[in-house]
């Protein structure tokens, strides 16, 4: 499944790259891109675990930059 999410308060470009790296490491994630300019994340991941993966991704986002929130 492929889905697009908004990222609130994504203010640091370097962080976007770090988030991308961390989320890529979540098991079941096929592809992810975090776009700093459009403040959007496109996630392609395993259907069966999709909701879980999104939750983990939200944690990764917080971990890199505590001000940024993944809007689900």
């Amino acid at each position, binding site marked *: 499944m492929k889905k697009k999410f908004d990222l609130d308060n994504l203010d640091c470009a370097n962080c976007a*790259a770090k988030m991308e790296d961390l989320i890529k490491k979540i098991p079941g994630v096929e592809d992810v891109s975090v776009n700093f*300019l*459009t403040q*959007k994340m496109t996630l392609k991941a395993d259907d069966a675990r999709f909701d879980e993966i999104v939750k983990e991704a939200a944690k990764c986002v917080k*971990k890199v930059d505590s001000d940024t929130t993944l809007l689900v």
Partner: protein
Amino acid sequence: MNKKQKRTVARIITALVLLILLIILEKTGNLSFLDGRWYAFVPFLLPYLLAGYDVILKAAKNIAHGQVFDENFLMMIATFGAFFVGEYAEASGVMIFYQIGELFQGIAVGKSRRSIAALMDISPEYANIERDGELVEVDPDEVHPGDLIVIKPGERIPLDGTVVDGSSMIDTSSLTGESVPRSAREGDPVISGCINGSGTLRVQVSREYEDSTVAKILELTENASSRKSPIENFITRFAKIYTPAVTIAAVLLAVIPPLLFGQDWMEWIKRACTFLVISCPCALVISVPLGFFGGIGASSRIGVLVKGSNFLEALSQVKTIVFDKTGTLTKGEFRVQKLYPAEGVSEAELLRKAALAETYSTHPIAEALRAAQRERLSEKAARTADQDAPGTGDSGRSEADDYFVTDAQEIAGKGLSVLIDGKPVLAGNAALLRDAGVDFSETEDAGTVVYLAEDGRFLGSAVISDSVKEGAKEALESLKKSGVRETVMLSGDRRKAAETVGAELSIDSVYSELLPQDKVTKLEEILRSGTGKDKTAYVGDGINDAPVLSRADLGIAMGSLGSDAAVEAADIVLMDDDVTKIAETMKIAQKTLRIVRENIWFALGVKFAVLILGAFGLASMWLATFADVGVAVIAILNSMRMLRRKAG
């Protein structure tokens, strides 16, 4: 500026004023009572915290998550280090300047984001659908093929479809960059994303919203940035190692000289701090993708969809362009170019007889002749509008009914013979007339020539050919000026026809009489003969050359508004069939790459220079702050030039 930014401005100004006051007090000796005391730094803590408390809070939070190479954290360490070595004014000053830089950066990024949003502002918000005799606004997603929607004047067309009622002028500029509106009447297709003019249209929807043109374009533009160009990939990899490398270098710089060579600790800690200030690769990480985004945006504003930054980079390096002939360089429609009536015959008679003779043929040549005759009749009808002129409806047919066209016979490879009002008429190539023993004069023009004879008497000839598109010559010239070394044309057409077009447009090499699969082979030959770095682009109309489009380094499809196959197969899509847009897009691509390279060299150059100066103790922390945020702001502003580029 938003509220948060305004608050930051107030904080920065207050902190700056406080700092200046403190420096004046210090210089005039009013702070001398603090000299040598351990708490001498306390006054300077005030402007420092005022300007940078959020940086410190964030650093604390992020370090708790294990983010060692966080820019806030590194900034905090750098300024703490400055306090530690007794550079109080510098410590607060650097924090203030860092915040000023961040503020400018935030404003610039916000501005770019708004320009990008404006670029994407082609998505329709609602569709008017008729339900129980009433118009209801619904989400375009809820409308399905076959439904009837109403588009009021000035509204954005929400879905692709066909007009069933009404007429209007449609502004396609947001999709094609073309400023002249197109007319839409009953039976015409309309494309989502365009703006309706002053008429109300009832449209039968032909596709789901997610398959509609506007949804496709939006998806392509948004995903374009995820297809990263080699330069972007380099920056991403570089950014990953840059911060850790600089941080480790800073630690080594602080520790090794004092430990091994007995140097002064304070001096080397100070130098290490300048390193930490420059440790964020932000200038590159923001400005490079922004530049590409701007380039893709500028292209889309002239009606050219570039499907990824990688394709924009490839386009800037194209050295060979291969064109398909029909539909790409030529209009792809056969037209009567010239009439050569024999003596004593009028042009009108020649054309009428020719069209009559070809009444029952479905050959493109026959269609061209009939179309020319219809045009002539409707012009005549317009001139004599008040008379009862023939010209209503399909005038070509009604003429055929007035006259008596019988006994049509095809003479393979030569033409045909018919009886018009009982008189035998021959229409075909020179061989046909020669065989019939008709005395006639040959025409030398390129194209297909139809000779006409009635009752053994030569009536004249008509030249029919495909014509070169307006602007094609200029387009090829400006491509050459933009750095294209070789132009090639592939054609399935006869050699003579292809070479005439080739000569007219001064194309370097022309290959004709190619079957669709031959085109792929030919392109592969051209690809093999080129050197590794030079790119070869193929331009086609996407109708039957999808394999060639996908085989080239860069596939450019044109005239593809609404054509799925072409949009799928191509890397760059021209929304209308204006060839001149290729050269324009190439210029945009080259400008984008120039800006991106400028930014990379500038940012890396300044950073490395300051790092080296810093290692030798020649760079102050002020300079380091500039190398960090100052460079970032300048690089972003440079990239924003692409976003501001006007259409055309």
